[in-house]
C-alpha cells in the first residue's frame, strides 16, 4: 500500500486516489480535424515509462486533480504539484 501526497491534504493511502492520465497529453480537437489514428493514439497509447513517470492523479476525498512524478520501479514519489493555476 503506497502513500501518495495530495498537494492540498498531505500524505494519504493510495486507496484514496485514482489515476487520471499521463501528464502532458493534450486532447486533440476539434473532432472533425482529427484522424482516427490520432484519436486512437490519444485514447489508448501510453508511454508507461519504466522509472520516472509524470502523471495526473485525483485525490478522491477532496476531488482535486494534481501532477505527481513518481518512479514506477522503486515506487518512490518524487514530486507532487497542483495543476497550473490551482496552487493552494
Amino acid at each position: 500500500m503506497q502513500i501518495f501526497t495530495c498537494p492540498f491534504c498531505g500524505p494519504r493511502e493510495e486507496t484514496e486516489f485514482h489515476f487520471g492520465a499521463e501528464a502532458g497529453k493534450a486532447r486533440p480537437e476539434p473532432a472533425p480535424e482529427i484522424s482516427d489514428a490520432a484519436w486512437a493514439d490519444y485514447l489508448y497509447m501510453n508511454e508507461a515509462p519504466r522509472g520516472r513517470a509524470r502523471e495526473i492523479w485525483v485525490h478522491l476525498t477532496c476531488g482535486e486533480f494534481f501532477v505527481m512524478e513518481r518512479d514506477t520501479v522503486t515506487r518512490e514519489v518524487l514530486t507532487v504539484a497542483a495543476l497550473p493555476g490551482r496552487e493552494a
Partner: protein
Amino acid sequence: MSGWRLPSGGAIDRARPLGFTFDGRQFEGFAGDTLASALLASGTRILGRSFKYHRPRGLWGMGGEEPNAIIDVTDAGVTTPNLRATLVPLRAGLEARSVNASPTAERDCWAVLDLLHRFLPAGFYYKTFMAPDWMRWEPSIRRMAGLGRLDPGNRPPADAVPMNARADLLVIGAGPAGLAAARAAARNGRAVWLVEEAPAIGGALRWRGGAIEGADWEAFAADTAQTVEAAGGRVMTDTTLWGAFDHGLYAAWERRAGRGDRHWRIRAGEVVLAAGALERPLWFANNDLPGVMSAEAGLHYLSLYGVAAGRRVLVACANDAPYAVAGALAEAGAQVTLADARADTPEAPEGVRLLRGARISRARGTREVGAADVDGAHLDVDTILCSGGWTPTVHLFCQAGGKLDLDARRDALVPRPGTAPMQVAGAANGAFGLQAALDEGHRAGGGTGPAPRAAAAADWAVMPMRPDPASGGRQWIDLQNDVTFKDVKLAAQEGFRSVEHLKRYTTLGMATDQGRTANFAGLAALAAVTGRSVEETGTTTYRPPFAPVPFPVIAGPRRGELFNPPRRLPLEPAHRDLGARWRDYGGWLRPATYGEGDEAALAQAEALEARQAAGLYDASSLGKIEVIGPGAAALVDFCNYVRMSTLEPGRARYGFMLSESGVVHDDGVVLRLAEDRFLVSASSSHTASVRLMLEEARQDRFDPRQVFVHDVTAHWTTLTVTGPGARELILGAGIAEEVAALRFMRVAETAWRGVPLRAARVSFTGDLSYELSVPARHGGMLMQALDGARAAVGACWIGLEALMILRAEKGFVLVGKDTDGVTMPQDLGWTGPREKRTDEYLGRRALFTPEARRADRRQLVGLEAEGEALPVGAHAVPLEGQRRSLGFVTSSHMSPVLGRPIALALVEAGNDRLGQEVGIFHLGETRRARIVPACSYDPEGTRRDG
C-alpha cells in the same frame, strides 16, 4: 517406541494438566505445551496423511515452517482448519483432527494410494485433467487430495478491529540479532516494534541457552524489552509478520488466545529483518517417515517442554549445530548416534557415539522409523534427527524486492545488500552463531560502540549437502505437497528446466508452508539433475503471505452486511412500516416490493395499480449533482451528449454522459434551475463517477473559479408520484396548484408547509409523474402527506421490481443493464447530437470512428414473444442458416398491463430487423420472438400528461 516426557524440565507447568483429544482419542498435556509438544510427548507419531499419496506423516519442525502437522482445531466451539500444531497453544478441552485422512491419520483408508505411486507422477493432475473424460474423476480426486475440512455452518467470530500502527523501526524476529537491533535502536530513542512469531522472545536462545554480557541471556532479553517499551515501542509475541508491501507497510497476524486474533498494518520507517534460519532436511530413502525430524526441533522440544523425540536416536548432519542436540539428548537418557558426513568434525559430545564421514542412505519402517541404514550398516533406531544445513528466512526481504546471492562458505542464499528497503541481520543474513548475530543486530539497529558479547563465540561450520541423483528409494523434497526427487528428475526430463516451471509442474513449494523446508532442496535437486549450479538455477518468486493467515483475521468485522455496506434511504424505517422487502440495487438498499407474498406477483400487482391509478416510490438514491457558476452551462455542455446550454431556466432535458471512447457512461435528466445553476441527475450507482468526470473537465479544461460541482444527493429526499391519478394525489397532499399544473419537462422551486420543495415533471414510467424533493430532514413529512392522500386515488407504494417493469414497457434503458461496454448513443436511437453538434463534447470524436460507423452495430430493440418472459442474457440467433449470436436479451418482464412478455435486447442492426422473427436461444432451447421497437406501451405518449 518414540517420543516421551522427561520426569522434569522444560518451561511447562506440570501442576496444571490439560486434557484434549486428537482424532477422537483422549490425551493429556500440560499448561505451556503446544499441541505439537503434547502429541510428541504422548508418543503419537502419525499426525496426518500426505497430500497426494496418503503416506503417514509425523512432526518435523517447531514453528510456522511445519510441513506435516497440519490440524483442524476446535476450541471453545470455534473450528479453525489447517493450523500448524507447532503454533497452537494447548488448552483444556481442545479438539484436534488430522487432515486428509479418513477416518483417522492412524487408520486411513486412502493409504492404498501410496502403492499406486508409480502411476501418480509429477504432473499427474495436469495430465489427468487434460484427458477427455476428466470430469468423471474430478470429484473423487478432490475428496482424496486436500487438507482440512471447512464446516459450512461455522461462523468464527472476528470482531477484532484491524489495527494500524506506525513505528520508527520494525524489527522482525526477536532472536539474538533482533534483540540486539531493538535494544540499540531503542537506546537511541527510537520507537521500535519488535515482532516475534513464537510465544516468547529469545529465538534459539530459548532452547539453546547462552550467556550474554556476562549474564544469562534472559537478563539481556528482559532488558531489551524494557528499553523498547520505555522508548515508546512495543514487543509483540505470537505475532506472524506475513507480508511486506509498498512504502514500508507490513501486515501482521497477532494470535490472542481466548480474545480473538487481530490483524495489524504496521507502517515502518525502517526495518530490520532478523527472522533467523530454518533447518534443511536431508535426502535419503523414506525421509518422510514419522520419526524423521529436524534436529534443532529435537532440542527445542527437549529444552522447552521436557520432551525427548525418541529413545534410540540417530542424529544425521554435516554441520556443527546438531552436536548440542545430540549431547542434550544423551544427557537426558537417550541412546544417541551422531552420523556426520564430514571427516573432520568437532569432538563427540559426552555419551554420544560419533560416526565420522558417515551418511544415512535409508530410513526403514512402514508406518514409522524402525531402523536406519548408515554407510551400509543397519542401525537400530526409532528416531532420526536431521540437519542438512540452514536456509536463511529471507521471504520478507524478497517480497520487498530483494535479491539473493549464494554464500558458498555457509551454503546458503543470503540477501544482497541494497536490493530491498530493509536491513537483514543474524541467521537470516547467513550469520550463523550467537556472536555473529549479536554483532549484525547491533549494527543494523544503529548501535554505536561494541555489540553485546556472548560467551560462546564460534560460528557454525557447514558442509553443503545435496540430494544424490545416484541414490535409490523415494526421497522426499517437498513433504507437504508430496514431491519426490524422482518427480524433479521427471520434470527436468520433460523439459521443465526453469525453476518457475518446475514449481508449477511438480507443485514443489506451492503448499501452505510455501516450501519453507523444501525450496532450497528443490533448487539443489534441479541443479543436480540438470548439471547446473544453484545460482544458475535461480529462485522462484516470493509472494505474501509468508504463512497462511485465517481469512477471519484479515476481514475482522468487515464481512456480511459490513463487507460492502449499502447506502440506505433516510426513510427506511417508514418504508419498513409499509412492509417493504429490501434489496441492494447498485449499492443502495431499496424496497423491492411491499407486503407479503410472492415477489413476482407483488411486482405485477404494483405495476398494474400504478398504471391504473397511481404509484409512489422513493427515488432519493438517484444522484443529484449541482453545477453552479457563470461557467456552468459550458461545463454541462461539454460533459453531456445533448446540449444543455440552450435550456431555459425552469426546464429539464434528458441526456447522456459519454466516456471519451464514445460509450454511454450514464443517462439522466438535467434540470436548469437558474441561468447559472444546473442539477445533473445520475443513476444511483454512477453518481460518484459522474461527479468525478464533471470535476475532471472542470479542472482540466475550464476556469475552475467560474464553476463548481457539488454532489447534493444526500441533501434531498425525493419521492415520485406516477400514474393517471398523480395530479389528484399531490393536490390531496396539499401541494400547490402551481406544482400540479407544471408542464412536462418543467421544474419548479417552491415551498410546501414552509419547507423548500423542488418539483419536476419528469417521468421514468411514461405516465404523468411528479418528482418531489424536499430537504432530507423533511422527507418524513412529505412521505406522510403523500401516503395520507393515497387511498383517495387508489394508489400504492411500488418497489423497484415494479418500477423496472414500468420503465421497460416504455423502452427506457438502465445504463449498464440495457447497454454494455460498447454501446453508443446512436445505438439507443439518439442520433441527433452526433449529427448536428459542432462544438466539442466528451466522446465526440469516438462517435465517428470506423467502429462507430459500422452498419451492424448492436442496437436497442424490443422483443415480442408468447408465453413466459424471455430469459435475460439469452442470445438472439437467426432462425435459419448457421447459428450465431445476433445479440442478447438485456431486460425481460411479464407486462401486466399488456398481458404478455416484453423484453429489451441489443441486436445487431436491430433497427433494420424490425418486424423480423429471431430465435431466442437459452440452455439448448430456442423460442421465437419478433423484433419490435423498444417502446411497447403507449408509443404515442398519450399518458404523459395524465
